[in-house]
């Protein structure tokens, strides 16, 4: 378990480092949310009163070290402060709401994209050089190279505006009350279709290419040939010998690519006005809502760390070579 221990230490250090970056980034940014609010509103708040407000919202000029320690403490106690824009909503609650949507969107899209992509990759590699392989490879290259913005906009254009099959955004019909009723769920699914489709398109190609290349690299291995020599069925060799081994690097690519997935989901959420983490972060950046920016970045980083940790764990489970006493 030394391997896992090492990783845990890394994750802790990474988390603290990320938290630190989070702390300093907004402090480097010019402007603060209060000033921002009044820059737009053209209100008559006097400079003195503005400063009084800043103080109340915690934009204090305490020594940076002191602020940092207080911040670290609050991070570890799960207190991310309160949103300025949505005062006094605690950041955790604001992001908690957003997180549900993003997890739903990203989670489902990743599962679908990963499954389809991996299967296509496996089959393409197995039938290397056939027309199937050529078509799948080209499609995958294409889908993995087109920016998420472009895919979202085109999907929105095609299915939202031109064909009018799906709504042009939002997580659900705003007039419906969130409840576990069928209406609401149907509305959520209906609204989620296009963002989901976008994410799946963006993700599938990458997984397919990775899996295909991993598979092809493995197909020359002796144990694959031995699997065939044993008279196992093609599908058995493909799945139990090749795919299973090729999956390992793909899974770790998945964890690393989660950062990109989050980036893709940010764009998709913005285009479709989906109330997830990415959109919340984006809005917070526009409003200079520092506590929310900090919180969102921290949660995203934590999600990356958790994903990597899960991958590490699954590595240990999937690959007996790591299971050292």
């Amino acid at each position, binding site marked *: 378990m030394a391997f896992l221990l090492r990783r845990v230490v890394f994750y802790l250090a990474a988390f603290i480092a990320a938290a630190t970056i989070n702390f300093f980034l907004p402090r480097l940014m010019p402007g603060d949310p209060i000033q921002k609010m009044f820059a737009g509103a053209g209100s008559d708040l006097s400079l003195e009163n503005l400063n009084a407000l800043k103080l109340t919202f915690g934009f204090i000029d305490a020594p940076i070290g002191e602020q940092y320690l207080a911040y670290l403490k609050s991070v570890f106690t799960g207190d991310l402060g309160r949103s300025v824009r949505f005062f006094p909503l605690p950041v955790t609650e604001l992001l908690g709401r957003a997180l549900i949507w993003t997890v739903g969107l990203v989670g489902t899209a990743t599962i679908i994209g990963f499954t389809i992509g991996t299967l296509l990759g496996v089959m393409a590699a197995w039938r290397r050089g056939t027309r199937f392989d050529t078509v799948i490879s080209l499609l995958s290259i294409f889908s993995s190279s087109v920016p998420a913005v472009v895919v979202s906009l085109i999907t929105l254009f095609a299915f939202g505006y031109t064909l009018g099959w799906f709504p042009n955004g939002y997580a659900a019909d705003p007039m419906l009350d969130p409840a576990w009723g069928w209406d609401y769920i149907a509305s959520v699914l209906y609204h989620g279709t296009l963002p989901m489709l976008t994410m799946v398109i963006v993700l599938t190609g990458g997984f397919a290419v990775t899996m295909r290349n991993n598979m092809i690299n493995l197909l020359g291995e*002796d144990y694959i*040939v031995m699997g*065939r*020599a*044993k*008279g196992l069925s093609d599908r*058995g060799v493909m799945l*139990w010998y090749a795919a299973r081994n090729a999956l390992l690097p793909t899974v770790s690519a998945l964890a690393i690519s989660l950062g990109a997935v989050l980036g893709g989901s940010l764009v998709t959420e913005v285009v479709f006005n989906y109330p997830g983490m990415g959109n919340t972060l984006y809005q917070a950046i526009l409003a200079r809502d520092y506590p929310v920016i900090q919180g969102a970045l921290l949660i995203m980083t934590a999600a990356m760390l958790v994903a990597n940790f899960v991958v590490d764990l699954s590595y240990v489970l*999937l690959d*007996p070579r790591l299971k050292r006493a």
Partner: protein
Amino acid sequence: MSAPVLSIRNLTIDYIGATSDFHAVKNVSFDIGKGEFFGLAGESGCGKSTIAFAISRLHRPPALIRTGSQILLDGRDVFTLDDAALKQLRWREVAMVFQSAMNSLNPVLSIERQFYDVLKTHTGMSRVAARARAAELLKLVDIPADRLTAYPHQLSGGMRQRVVIAICLALNPKLLIMDEPTTALDVVVQREILERIHKLRQELGFSVLFITHDLALMVQVSDRIGIMLEGELVEVNDAQAIYRTPQHDYTKKLWASIPRLTGKPIAEVTP
């Protein structure tokens, strides 16, 4: 010699390239009799493994077995078999030990699972029965049954090679192909393994196609030997004949290059 187990006729195999082909095996013919230990020797890259792969039709593109080649196993031409028959043939009749023991076991499956694969596919054996059979087979190669739950990386190279041999014997094949089974091992381990094969063959009566480039070893273990040079089979003969009275210049040159442990360091080339 009675009807041969394996009979190769005019085997020609090319590797297709983008512009030109590489002729890896050129019109090779030889037989292996029942219970015979046949050695195939030759330098690296002369086409030995290519022949071995062709016997159970394991090649993948861009290898191409030219029309006109024949490989008869017990009189049946393997090139005419359909998929189902081919799967039957593999391992049941021809089992194979690959060049590198390190890599021929699936690293993520337990040893037991790799026995079970074969037994399940070919005999539909249950997991429990397969476990018993696997334990029995491991005993043949002198590995305690409790290693069944181990994963390949937990075994030493020699042990892995013996596990592969045990898996090969699972279905009592008629022909065991060993493609340089011991090159990665040191001499003592090599010796152990070959002694065991030698004994098992006497007990079980299978034939062996033994591929190596170590001529001295080959003469020690084989009944008959074929010498290959750049895709062609240049000489086939009794082991002793190959050693004592090599016919082909190439064979003679080979012997002349091998330092000896006793007597003169280098053998005289018999003119």
